[in-house]
């Protein structure tokens, strides 16, 4: 069954937004030595917590790797139209979805604070995941 072009465009756009979001957060992470705590802003709490990095690597940098890989897979698919590449992308998104769920859990139940920039990424992965499930089901 043919996959709608629009579906690929949405996938691509969501991955791009996620990529931009992660790049922004990583740049912030590296630049701002000590970001201040701001009234009604929970981002600092989330981004300065111990959950914001895996060892020395900020989670947002993992986000860059994740969305970057996804973009390369999608470009490769648009190039050779091999459905297997799309399936790899779908598996990658599933892993991303699991990671996102874990981070939403951390934000809601451990830190008790939600970071909007992190939620943008979660939303993008949710969109990507919904489309992935659809693609996997029609195949």
């Amino acid at each position, binding site marked *: 069954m043919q996959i709608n072009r629009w579906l690929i465009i949405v996938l691509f756009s969501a991955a*791009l937004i996620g*990529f*931009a979001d992660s*790049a*922004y957060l990583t*740049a*912030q992470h590296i*630049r*701002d*030595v*000590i*970001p*201040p*705590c*701001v*009234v*009604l*802003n*929970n981002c*600092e*709490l989330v981004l*300065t*917590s111990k959950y914001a990095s895996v060892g020395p690597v900020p989670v947002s940098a993992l986000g*860059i790797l994740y969305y*970057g890989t996804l*973009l390369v897979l999608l*470009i490769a698919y*648009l*190039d*050779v*139209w*091999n*459905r*297997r590449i799309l399936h790899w992308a779908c598996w990658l998104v599933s892993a991303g979805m699991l990671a996102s769920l874990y981070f939403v859990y951390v934000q809601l139940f*451990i830190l*008790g*604070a939600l970071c909007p920039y992190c939620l943008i990424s979660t939303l993008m992965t949710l969109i990507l995941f919904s489309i992935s499930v659809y693609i996997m089901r029609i*195949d």
Partner: protein
Amino acid sequence: MISAMEHNASNDAHMSRRERRETMRSQRGSNSLRQSPSRMLRRMLIWGGSLVAIGLIGWGMVELSKNAQLPVESGVLSVAVDAQDNMQGPADAEVTLTEYSDFQCPACAAFVPVIAKAFAEPELKGKIRLAYRYFPLSIHPNAQLASQAGQAAALQGKFWEMHDVLFEKQDIWSPLSSKAARDAFVGYAQQLGLDTGRFLSDIDNAAVKDRVKTDVDSGTASDVNSTPSFFVNGVRMTHPQSYEEFKQNLINALDANK
């Protein structure tokens, strides 16, 4: 290209029938197209264009983060430092650093060693004093009580000792319920040799709460909306991005007095 196809063929054994059909179809399609130079051009455009676009987005985000919306960083101190303030350093210091701070804010905790280091610099040593003002943010559930604990300790002459412990143990008491946090604060008071009975009655005392509120009000009146917020001789300091910048701001204030 032939070796690539052979490679694909050897992989075929591991593929399901459906995948094989798909691969065959895509290979047939790309083989016939690959003959034409326009197809090559198209491929180069797809890859080149996409990678350039991704690179541009990455670069754009790095640039954007430089101009990230920082909290309001202008204004002057609305209420001058006086004897009521919790003060550290010589009374006749040439430079007064006023800090609006929140005991539960990770950034404020991170600034404790930064401030100590700057105050120990040869250029600044003995010429600068620090006034600590409470600015508990509503996003931090235990910050208000921690401020009251600080002021209750101040009433027994041990504000700075409590200040240090609260920041040092921030990770421990931050996630606690307010009741458990209160117990933790009493424990710290005991460790510092305070009269815990008096500490417990002072922490909820109306005068102590008023004292915290006075600081919050003077901060709000001085356009403070983030912590830590620094004022050097009454003038707002832009949130320092590095230790050097922080130190230089203080030295500049010292030089301006001469």
